[in-house]
């Protein structure tokens, strides 16, 4: 049996008095693993660790079988890693081509012709080849995120760490993003953090739901959807037993929670499962408080 590309073993991380990760453990095999969770759940902290820019206080992370706390192994990991931070910085006075070229040099691509071919390839892949000679400060937010994705794809890395890559993208760009990432995934490992449950449902064979620095759920999107099986129903009004409820475009209330007998049950979505899971913990904490 092969070793999972990403192993997170009882990882803890604190920033001052704030606990970002509290004993998180899970494995991410080849393919796309989606990370879902509310703000402050610890997703970005985890991805920064997976990108080797942050070390855990306690616990261990292994990437491609290597330990990033050892400098030689960290270097080996970085040579096989593509990282798109949540807020990727850009040298705004550079053109898109110059910036990705600059990153390519720092990724040890030193042969000029090969490097330029690779830069053009990734910029074309993300659809910014038409504006590659335009300065980054003149690009829209969506275009900049595509440039950030392009630099992460340089060299076809074995591990791709993407922190909210679809934030700020329009629907068409998101579909293009799905196409690119799903094509790249194959036998590679992609860690994808997002607030978009549709992206997880469309892309990820595996999903981890995080809350308060630990994994609340680990499984397939179908299993997450099944959390809400028999717990989503339509009613003319908000049901008293509903944990969450909103009026849909048809005017009916879509209720999520413990369905009363005889309720008009509907097929749940992945978002229902996620909301129920995260909402349940939140409600429980509220009740305790």
């Amino acid at each position: 049996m092969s070793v999972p590309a990403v192993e997170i073993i009882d990882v803890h991380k604190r920033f001052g008095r704030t606990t970002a990760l509290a004993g998180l453990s899970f494995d991410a095999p080849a393919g796309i693993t989606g990370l879902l969770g509310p703000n402050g759940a610890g997703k970005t902290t985890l991805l920064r660790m997976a990108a080797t820019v942050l070390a855990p206080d306690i616990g261990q992370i292994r990437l491609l079988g290597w330990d990033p706390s050892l400098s030689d192994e960290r270097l080996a990991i970085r040579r096989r890693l593509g990282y798109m931070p949540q807020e990727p910085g850009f040298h705004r006075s550079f053109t898109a081509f110059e910036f990705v070229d600059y990153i390519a040099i720092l990724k040890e691509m030193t042969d000029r012709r090969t490097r330029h071919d690779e830069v053009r390839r990734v910029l074309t892949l993300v659809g910014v080849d038409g504006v590659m000679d335009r300065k980054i400060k003149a690009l829209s937010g969506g275009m900049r995120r595509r440039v950030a994705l392009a630099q992460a794809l340089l060299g076809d890395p074995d591990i791709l760490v993407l922190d909210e890559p679809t934030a700020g993208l329009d629907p068409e760009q998101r579909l293009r993003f799905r196409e690119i990432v799903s094509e790249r995934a194959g036998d590679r490992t992609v860690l994808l953090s997002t607030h978009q449950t549709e992206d997880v449902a469309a892309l990820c064979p595996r999903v981890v739901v995080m809350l308060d620095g630990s994994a609340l759920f680990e499984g397939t999107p179908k299993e997450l959807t099944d959390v809400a099986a028999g717990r989503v129903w339509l009613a003319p009004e908000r049901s008293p037993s509903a944990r969450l409820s909103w009026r849909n475009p048809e005017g009916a209330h879509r209720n999520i929670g413990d369905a009363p007998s005889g309720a008009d049950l509907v097929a749940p979505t992945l978002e229902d499962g996620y909301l129920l899971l995260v909402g349940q913990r939140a409600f429980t904490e509220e009740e305790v408080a």
Partner: protein
Amino acid sequence: MATSLRAAFEDARASGIPQASARPSVAGVWALGRIEARRMLLHPSFLIGMAFAIFVMRGAFGSGGTQMDLVENVAWVLGGILVGVLVGTVLTTNIAAMRPRRDQTQELFGALPAPPETRTVGVFAGLLLGPVTLSIVLTACAWWAFRSNEDIGPHIDLFLAVQIPLTVAALGAIGFAIGRWVPSLLGGPVVIAAHIMTGIFWAVPWVLPTSTDVDRPRHMVYLVAAITTWVALALARDRRTAPRFLIAAIAFAVGVVAASQQLPPGGL
């Protein structure tokens, strides 16, 4: 205040990024150097500096002054031409040093295999390929143009010609090192102003005319020591190791001794 605190926090976070153990590759450094050189030469502050130098040259060599004025005031003319280039170099390297912090790319760069020294040495390579090379070319052109002029020709020799690119390199290194250690766009201008206002500029000149009675080898040692000091300090910002601070300290000491001994008793 809030901005300084945020900068300090971001710096602390960036310095907490576990660094790559690889040594900067020569090919990578020169590849970055080419990019940095182009950016420096085309940066507005460098172009303005060059424009100022051309303006002074026009005044000195054009119809505005006689040849005797030029010979008598060779130090002023030389300084006037150089100041634009030097100020432009200090400002461009200073801005290059602050670019990752200003553009918040430290986290992204931290996940890449190249160590931070690659970028630092890459900027110095850019300094060599850009402003320093340009200063060598301009000096060579001036030397060639005036070599047969019996009034000006004697004022230009190898001593003068070597000082100019060394001075450009030294001030570029200062601009870069200041930018690495002082997270403010005011760092470069303050260094330039302090250099002039405190009299260092006059007490230990960077470029000395051929006619001065200065100890030439010691002046060259002073220039090389200044470059070494600031390059070591810039590298010490990437990785705070004892050897880097030690090299900076030794080079600084050598520079101070060479500077104090280069001038003849009683000054120039």
